[in-house]
């Protein structure tokens, strides 16, 4: 685990997000129900898939946000940004400060209501994100990183 954690408000925010986006899990069941009304398949299939979707939905909404939060950590120092995340695949990424091209923060409606925002660092190749930091913190971090990047003279 690295030094810093993301904001605990991430848990309810993610829960809300998953609760909304997880609804698509029921789409197979809905489709099967449609097939049932056309008398293509039996009702058992519809019930089965609905139960399966329900179980997955409950698991995702109830446990995933907490688990994901507890596995996310990061660290920013003058050398670089380190991020560690993942439940089954634990990933550890490190981006040196002097490779960063630009930093941006972003906020959706759910994050805004919880006072969170996402910070994203782009280097020449890809970008990396730290989700759900407190708004002020992410602004601070953004300024800090931009200041550090400004001192670097290297070119791509």
């Amino acid at each position, binding site marked *: 685990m690295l030094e810093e954690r993301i904001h605990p408000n991430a848990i309810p925010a993610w829960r809300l997000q998953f609760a909304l986006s997880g609804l698509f899990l029921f789409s197979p069941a809905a489709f099967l129900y449609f097939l049932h009304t056309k008398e293509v398949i039996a009702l058992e299939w519809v019930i089965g898939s609905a139960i399966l979707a329900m179980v997955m939905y409950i698991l995702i909404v109830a446990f995933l946000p907490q688990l994901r939060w507890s596995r996310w950590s990061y660290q920013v120092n003058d*050398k670089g940004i380190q991020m560690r995340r*993942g439940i*089954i*695949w*634990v*990933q*550890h*990424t*490190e*981006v*040196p400060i002097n*490779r960063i091209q630009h930093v941006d923060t972003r906020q959706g409606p759910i994050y805004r209501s919880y006072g969170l925002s996402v910070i994203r660092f782009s*280097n*020449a*190749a*890809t970008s*990396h994100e730290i989700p759900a930091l407190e708004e002020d913190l992410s602004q601070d971090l953004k300024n800090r990183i931009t200041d550090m990047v400004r001192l670097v003279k*290297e*070119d*791509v």
Partner: protein
Amino acid sequence: MFEFQRLHWVASITGVLEVIKQNVFTLIIVFIVGSRNESPYFIWLIGAGLLSAFGLGILGWFRFKYQLLEDEIHIHKGIFVQKKLYIHKNRVQVTEISAGIIQRIFGLVSLTIQTAGGGSERAVLSALDAETARTIVEVLNPKNTKGSELNSEFSQEEQQINAVPNEGEHSHTNLTPPPNHQPHSNHNPEWTLSNKRLLYLALTSGEFGIIATILGTVLGQLSDFITDENIQWIVDRIPLIQQPGLFFVLFSIGAVILVSYVLSIITSFVRYYGFTIRKIGNELHISRGLLERIQTTVPYHRIQAISSTEGLLRQPFGLESISIISAGHQQGQQQRSLLAAPLILGHEREVFFQQFFGSWEIAQGISQQSRQELQDSSQDFLSRVNESIIPSQNFLESNDEHELQLYAKPPKRAFFRYLRRPNYLWIFPFLVGSYWLPWLLWVALLSIPATLYGWIAYKDTELGLSSEHLYIRYRVLARKHIWVPKVRLQSIGTSQHILQKRKKLYHVMFSVVSGSHELSVRVKDFSSDTMNSIMNWFHR
């Protein structure tokens, strides 16, 4: 020089052809659809299409203006929406002068300027006289102080200063000046692809698979043509096939493969004919092509990494191809890396690197002898499981073996993971499928080649670190080598699966810029000690 100029009027012709080329699939579809229902609208449609292509091409030429300033180029273009493109020389990655058939008829060239970044517009000046093109290239390549040395790009004189294989295996190349400050040698090293090599290259290029797929699809579309009469016509003429049906299918598959193989040979020939790479000052000049002569200029400080691939068909002959990875890219162009040596013998690589990439460390890869020594010395350290201590034994004396500081292979405990990884590819479909189709049990035989592949992949995976460079050898069907300067590494990462955790193994990922995307190289199942050493090296 400082005025807004139009391109040569020939650009309107290439513009028209470009429009037609872009819409070639639409044209084919229209043709197929149109030939079925014989309505007169079809001809009108084609006519209108061609007319608008003409109009667009000529208008495009009329609206395209460029202006060369002291250290940048301004381009105004666009028919309905005017686009203004300002490219400063500090942002140019790769410049390419090419001469297609049309340009050659009029003695002109086309210039492409590549910049980095995802959304960047490509700047193509499609018809210029060679003189102007060269002036622009000189202006846009900042480090090029000796512009006059740019000898005629299209001179066909092929000096065969072929890389002579060096007999001594270990010629210590401690002559390593820091990059960008190479002493300007009097002679410019040059490497040419001989015609014999070109033939080998064409024969072993893996492209025929792609062409075969395309041909197969096209043939599939020509279902009108494949009628019983036509089949009978072919069957009558070829005595071997007496039974239409299965034999005909086999015959047509064979024909498709043969034709696409021949086509791939021809395309490689056309593409790499007269391949020459020259080092001029701080730039690499690469020229190639039979019908379309292409000259690419890459400044040394724009090279992100160098990679080398030993294709499956080439590895048995000890042949490989070396390419340059740069951030320059062209929109819509698939091939992102730039070939530096399309076909070279493995043992010539050392000389090639000395000539062209003198400052790159671990250029030779890792020799068998040192591999043995290093492995013996690091064996005891690898068996230690103390994660917190960063090992010191593994860092060798800095003079040793091309400044190799760390050598790592996946540890023995990763061996079985390597063996079973390729097997996952077939085992799941197999388990599901064999329930319904019992004959799928035979697919289990795939485990033999898959395990063999895993074994070879384990043997091939290795990693070397010097003070400034990273070297990785790995296998993705073909065996690949990659050299990356430390300053070009964009990010570094590790990942660990829940099952790897027991064995304390990590995947390590390195990412470099390649075109507008990232090239991420992953070495699998390295020990935690190695991982720590790599992280340590990265921080220094």
